[in-house]
């Protein structure tokens, strides 16, 4: 069963003009958000995106933009308390 989180929130954007159709985004996405069609990457369903940033970081053509982050409430709270970006603090606490 495909599990989906909140609809229409993902910051994922694909610039088809820059895309070379190399397929790297298809390889790295853990939720099968991308397919290659007519030698270009396409986004199937943006609501499946968890904003991990694997696609944008590995796109050699820099055709994908996204605000990367961890979808973790603890991280958001810790970031708010410390005045930093959301950070799960994994490593000094027992999370993940």
């Amino acid at each position: 069963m495909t599990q989906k989180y909140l609809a229409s929130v993902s910051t994922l954007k694909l610039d088809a003009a820059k895309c070379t159709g190399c397929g790297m985004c298809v390889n790295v996405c853990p939720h099968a958000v991308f397919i290659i069609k007519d030698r270009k990457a396409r986004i199937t369903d943006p609501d499946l995106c968890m904003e991990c940033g694997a696609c944008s970081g590995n796109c050699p053509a820099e055709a994908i933009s996204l605000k990367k982050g961890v979808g973790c409430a603890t991280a958001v709270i810790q970031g708010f308390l410390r005045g930093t970006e959301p950070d799960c603090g994994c490593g000094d606490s027992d999370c993940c």
Partner: protein
Amino acid sequence: MSQNAAAPAPLTIQKISSEYTRSDMFAAWKARWGINRAAWRVKPGLYALGSPSADSSVFASANYTLSFNELRKSLKGLDAWILVLDTKGINVWCAAGKGTFGTMELTRSIMESGLDKIVKNKTIILPQLGAPGVAAHRVKVYTGFSVVYGPVRAEDIKDFLSLRGKAAPGMREVKFGFPERIILAPIELVYFGKYLLPAAAILYGLGLKTDALLTLATLLAGTILVPALLPLLPGRSFSVKGAVAGAAALAAVYPLLNLDAYQSAARALFYLPLASFMGMEFTGASTYTSLSGVKKEMRLALPAQALALLSGIAMLIAGRFI
């Protein structure tokens, strides 16, 4: 010639077996319960699994014991090199999210291990979940090594290799089925139990047996029912799922208690936000929530939880004077 090329091997190569022993199983069990976190680390560096040669495959892993053990267990019967990055004892996916399993650490590890003198085939296979921290094309520029992203799960590696580095359908997708979720319940229970078990003990000591029981029921709802029933709980937002799990737990326990409608309502207002909060915290353990979504959820959920909690407290206090 090739013998000469392999001669200046660094001293740091360590031998490792693919055997998964009882003590490895015990270590994994302890890690799942959060026991002795400092012991979950593997020494970073290059490892020789079996008797690898200059033609053997190279795999990268994190220096988190569970990540490393999953990999070497899955490579049983193969001769391979394993390059363990220093991810501060954090698993591949979380470390990739933070960037410690990342382009710079991978580059540094490849350089320091002298891997370019050890293997002919300049390719390194990374777990796919390392991809959020790594830019494959940059690693190529910095080190000359091509990064190949392997499957999500180490258990698929042999199939991946037999398909000559192509992933079969499903190998690239993260699953979050019952087994993947319930294995997270102990760490959730330990994390929130730290606060709620002493609270329940104090309530019991004060003679508030009803509330001690409701605290325990809420703890179990937030830490076990939420992971167990996640896709069945209504709503997409985890705070709603948590509240529903909490309501189910209260519905199970209320018939055992002698509460009137007013007291039942007051306690629901007090305990449901706690279960809701625990459900919301499970976003961090889940494999499909995004930061944008979590922020949106929290903007609504946190004030609602606080309001319900305060209303519950106000009703409980007022109830004493009626």
